[in-house]
């Protein structure tokens, strides 16, 4: 009997915390579909009585969110692709190739994981400005790739170390070149680790706020997080509209999370375990 009570009380803890984690998000979703009359009094926490999908249409048409959305997709896609390729190559050199400075270079990348990005912000701002890149796509892509590389390398080198050498050896004995071997044999083997690293990079890039807020100054190159933030200031009384914008900014990460929840969890924890 006491065992049953204990089990039930543990269950109550789990459910209570689950509700705490979910309720604010449910509330966001529900007010993104309501009119101010419902949000501000009539129907604060219930499901919408009148489902205002128009909030979403207005968000896409009035706030320039379409451009921000496109930009965020572009920044994320390029960052994931470039970071993946560069870290896969560097990871290969760091684990498989024969050279003296290997440990030192690896140490430098490890250091990168610990740097708070704020501490590099101002000089980065100045350098990108001098190079004429600040305020354009490149001005944001460079920092994104640079600060995604260390963690990506960390995840990949961990994986490289577990791959047996025999396959490459066979290929090299058969006269296969390094680039050929890397492209044909190595890349397919490291796919799972590359996926893990890519999820990590994607989430970091899609959600990034500080660089995007500092290094971009025009609507044309703005990302969703910054766009929605200024949008929320501009239409501060139109909660339905702001809610719709926030849901739009969140939807891609949530969709990916529900489709690949195990991999997403694994990839974010990989950062913790390796770092």
């Amino acid at each position, binding site marked *: 009997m006491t065992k049953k009570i204990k089990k039930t009380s543990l269950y109550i803890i789990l459910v209570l915390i689950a509700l705490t*984690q979910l309720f604010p998000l449910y509330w966001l979703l529900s007010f993104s579909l309501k009119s101010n009359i419902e949000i501000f009094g009539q129907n604060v926490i219930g499901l919408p009585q009148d489902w205002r999908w128009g909030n979403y249409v207005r968000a896409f048409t009035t706030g320039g969110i379409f451009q921000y959305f496109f930009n965020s997709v572009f920044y994320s896609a390029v960052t994931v692709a470039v970071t993946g390729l560069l870290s896969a190559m*560097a990871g290969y050199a760091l684990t498989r190739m024969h050279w003296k400075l290997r440990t030192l270079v690896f140490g430098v990348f490890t250091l990168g994981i610990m740097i708070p990005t704020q501490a590099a912000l101002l*000089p980065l701002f100045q350098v990108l400005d001098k190079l004429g890149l600040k305020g354009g796509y490149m001005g944001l892509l460079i920092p994104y790739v640079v600060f995604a590389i260390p963690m990506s390398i960390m995840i990949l080198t961990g994986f490289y170390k577990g791959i047996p050498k025999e396959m490459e*050896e066979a290929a090299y004995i058969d006269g296969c070149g390094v680039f050929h071997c890397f492209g044909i044999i190595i890349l397919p083997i490291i796919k799972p680790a590359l996926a893990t690293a890519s999820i990590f990079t994607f989430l970091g890039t899609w*959600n990034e706020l500080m660089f995007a807020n500092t290094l971009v100054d025009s609507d044309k190159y703005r990302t969703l997080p910054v766009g929605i933030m200024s949008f929320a200031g501009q239409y501060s009384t139109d909660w339905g509209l702001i809610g719709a914008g926030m849901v739009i900014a969140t939807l891609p990460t949530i969709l990916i*999370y529900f489709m690949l929840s195990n991999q997403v969890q694994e990839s974010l924890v990989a950062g913790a375990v390796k770092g």
Partner: protein
Amino acid sequence: MFGLHKNERLDYIMDRMLGKKRYIAVFVLPALLLFLVFGIAPLITTGVYSLFDYDGIGKMDFLGLNNYIKLFTEDRYFPRALKNSFVLAGASIFIQLPISLVLALILAKGVKGEKAFRTIYFIPVVISSMVIGQLWMKIFHSEYGLLNIFIRFLGMKDFEYSWLSNPSTAFISTVVPSIWQYIGYHMLIFYAGIKSISTDYYEAARIDGATNWQTAIKITIPLLAPVLKTCMVFALTGSLRAFDLIYVMTNGGPNHASDVPGTLMYNNLFRKGLYGYGSAQAFFIVLECIILSFIISRIFKKAEDNASAI
């Protein structure tokens, strides 16, 4: 070539392919150069700026460590910002981590719906801190916010605050979502750690007649020492460098009441153009993160040795 044994021949080929400077350069230099030029060099530059009186345009006057001394002697806002970041760290370590640990312990024992709970707890982690910040601004809204509506519903009018614009509640109101967002993250790290503990220990404990509670205290938690250390370092450094959520919710206001070193530094650099002084604040954050992580590692060293001795 002909006189070599097979293994030596293999080594020779592998070394010829994988030891060539040209190939190594092609593989490692793109990532390394980018990282050195746009990652490490800016960090060092910030360290250098921190020693100067510099506004970004005019000349630079060398000050030595005076900027750092000023942080604690003349700055009206920095000590409070630093204190705030330590309050956040304390809340993270003493409220967030215990909740995460308890959840992980319950889930790892295998309850019904284990995977569903894990998935739910983790949802806020994948959401942008901008969205989390905006959402909690609405929750704390003085007129139509969920919190005040609830308080009114309970009839406790005295507890109805303008949470984010009242200096005495603004900072705490930013701590709540910070804690809330990452409960699932730490839970998952603990969970992975618990799952990696060999079941032999639990068998032995069960045979000895230990209760679940005893098992958790005597076996699981000591063996989790390395994971606990990682989480503590994350919670601590994450709090000391906090920026996004507070920037979105209050930007350090009202009148600096909710400032942390991150927001103070940002506004000094990009609003007031205090490049030298702001850099000292930025570099201070780097230094305190490194030093405190090191101290935590030392504290845990003994616990970890014990864990590997079990």
